[in-house]
């Protein structure tokens, strides 16, 4: 049961990150591998604010705002110009990989190579039914649930969400129907950048100690969750995050933890072999 609790926490952090990643990809057509680097930049922004004697929760808000703005700028300054030139998707992946290294090593150059921690309390530990979770972990789970509900409400009940779905489905048709797709894409970068910032700070809170390269492996988990659920599928990302998060932690309880990521990726490969479009992807 304790492993289930660990899996819930991992899945929660993963879900926040994966929802942002898959929304970004679905609407903007950019498979942004720099997402993990932006996450760790967010973690360090919150750290800098925290080191000024301010609560890390306020730092979280600052990081969310900064990453939202930063993601819009990243698109406007880097990705959009490449897309306007008709750059192929695979080349865009390489561009985003380049941005990953630029951001990550940029953070490292400024913050140094050593690991840092927030000055914060994890709060009282709550034990119930075999679950052992700190207050901060419960807050992270709560935030994740809020993000999932918020995403559902956004996509299902708001004009913006419908415009995002239309843009994702067929940009040209959406534009012909009067949707200002350029604005929708910009707002999507802002929203997903905010989710990226939120994911980065809760990731760092959960890890306890982090450095400039801490999200490298986590990015692979995000990709696994996104592709397991079906790329571009918001609900698929939620489901994928839960499956990957629980699979890694629960499997580690029964076999050596060395193989917990192996188990997650074996599950992904089996899934893709059986259903290449992912759990919630459209049939081809």
């Amino acid at each position, binding site marked *: 049961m304790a492993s289930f609790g660990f899996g819930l*926490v991992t899945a929660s952090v993963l879900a926040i990150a994966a929802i942002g990643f898959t929304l970004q990809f679905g609407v903007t057509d950019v498979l942004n591998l720099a997402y993990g680097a932006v996450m760790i930049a967010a973690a360090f922004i919150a750290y800098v604010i925290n080191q000024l004697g301010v609560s890390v929760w306020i730092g979280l808000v600052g990081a969310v705002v900064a990453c939202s703005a930063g993601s819009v700028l990243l698109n406007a300054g880097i990705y959009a110009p490449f897309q306007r030139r008709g750059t192929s998707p695979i080349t865009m*992946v390489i561009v985003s990989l380049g941005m990953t290294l630029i951001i*990550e*090593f940029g953070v490292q150059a400024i913050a140094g*190579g050593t*690991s840092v921690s927030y000055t914060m309390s994890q709060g009282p530990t709550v034990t119930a039914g075999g679950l052992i979770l700190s207050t901060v972990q419960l807050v992270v789970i709560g935030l994740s649930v809020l993000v999932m509900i918020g995403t559902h409400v956004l996509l299902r009940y708001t004009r913006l969400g419908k415009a995002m*779905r239309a843009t994702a489905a067929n940009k040209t048709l959406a534009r012909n129907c009067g949707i200002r797709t350029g604005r929708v894409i910009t707002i999507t970068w802002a929203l997903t950048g905010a989710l990226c910032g939120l994911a980065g700070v809760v990731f760092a809170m*959960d890890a306890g100690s982090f450095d400039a390269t801490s999200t490298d492996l986590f990015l692979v988990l995000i990709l696994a969750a996104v592709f397991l659920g*079906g790329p571009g599928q918001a609900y698929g990302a939620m489901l994928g995050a839960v499956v990957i998060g629980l699979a890694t932690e629960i499997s580690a309880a029964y076999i050596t*933890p060395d193989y917990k990521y192996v188990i997650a990726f074996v599950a992904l490969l089996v899934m893709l072999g059986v259903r290449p479009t992912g759990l919630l992807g459209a049939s081809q």
Partner: protein
Amino acid sequence: MKFKTPVTGWVLLVVIAVAAALTGCGSSGSSSSSTSSGAVSSSTASSSSSPSAASGSTLTIADVAPFSGPDAALGPTYLASCYGATAAINSAGGVLGHQLTCKSVDTRGDPADAVPAVNQMFATTPNLALVIGCTSDEAASVVPIINGHQMVMFCMTGQSEFDSVHFPYFYRLVPPDLEESYAMVAIAQQLHYKRIALAFGNDIGSQTFIQPAIAALAKAGMVLTTNQTLDLNASTFRTEAEAIIQSHPDAIMTEALGSADPTLFQEISQLNGGKMIPIIGTSAAISPPFFKSAAAAVGASTFANNFHADNLVVESSGPAFQAFSQALLAQQGKVPGATGDFTTYLSAPGGVHLYDGINLAALAMIMSNSTSPSVYGPDIIKIGNGVPGATVCYSFAGCATTLKAGHAIRYEGPGGPTNFDSYHDSTGIFQVDTYSASGQVNVVGNLTAAQLRALSG
């Protein structure tokens, strides 16, 4: 809520391959180097053939060590000793008319990154006179290269392969890792622990501790409750922490630098009802960044109350320590990457022994009247081990004066007397260190050679 599915199988494969490569890059990445502020090198000659430097030029000491990645705390520790030693040497008139400067060469703690970084160092560093650092992370790959360039190096690696392989330019003032494993078990004996869990990082430098530790635990009659390997790229170790707690150890022996150990400590504390399990660390844990991260993870007083580490015996008083502490503390705030309580560097093995190494090399240059490593190298042994009738001296300034007066010297720095063997290894004995809640290092005991012998295979 369906969006389109535009990614075909081949793109997916490329993405996963790229992501996997990225994970590798994150832990290794590209190499970089930066020169410390201060003196500027003026010669344009390559150092690959180790010639004597041009008169009046500045000599460079390269700190080849991790400045990023999980072991990133090591590089700044060594750099602090370099800054302290070179400043003291420069203020005493330098070496044969040369001033000294320090240069950092980032290996990222990865052999694959260390090799190009070292090659670049040789290609771009005029008047390179000495290399320090070379930890277990990268020593196996860079020591042959440095030796091939006929460059003297003082290495911090504990790998046992250097006990019996002769590299003429290799010098080491720290013991092999297996002795440090014995020291950790000896600490457990002193503290009357019976059940020990192991939790070591998956890097080369940490993995070398495990087998000697397991053997020593068996010899000591202790129970190995569990052996957990920590993936230094992972962000949580909850499962490993739970496994450790469930095995009910009296203490945990660990070395997993970077963010791994602090994260593990936090998760153990959380899953163990807020109670920390005592920790026995290696000498690498005696560094300000490690204390800062661990203290932030579980609380400074909790960490201080539950932590012991082995460390090589270093002076804490006397003329050698006075000179060392004065030189080192004068560099507070000047060393790039040095964070936390700077006084911790006075006890950090790298800080102490590389300071001694630099002094030994500088004095050997004066003794041989050459800055060429192939010429001054052999005199390191004479100055370290001493010759009959040699005058014992404790600082560069004092030793240089004695040398210039025509007397033989034996240098005894803050690391104590040296005794190089035929492989240029000089290993001391161990002490037991703890931290205070403010991060200061306290010596709480000593380990005798007999204790370690009793635990060896």
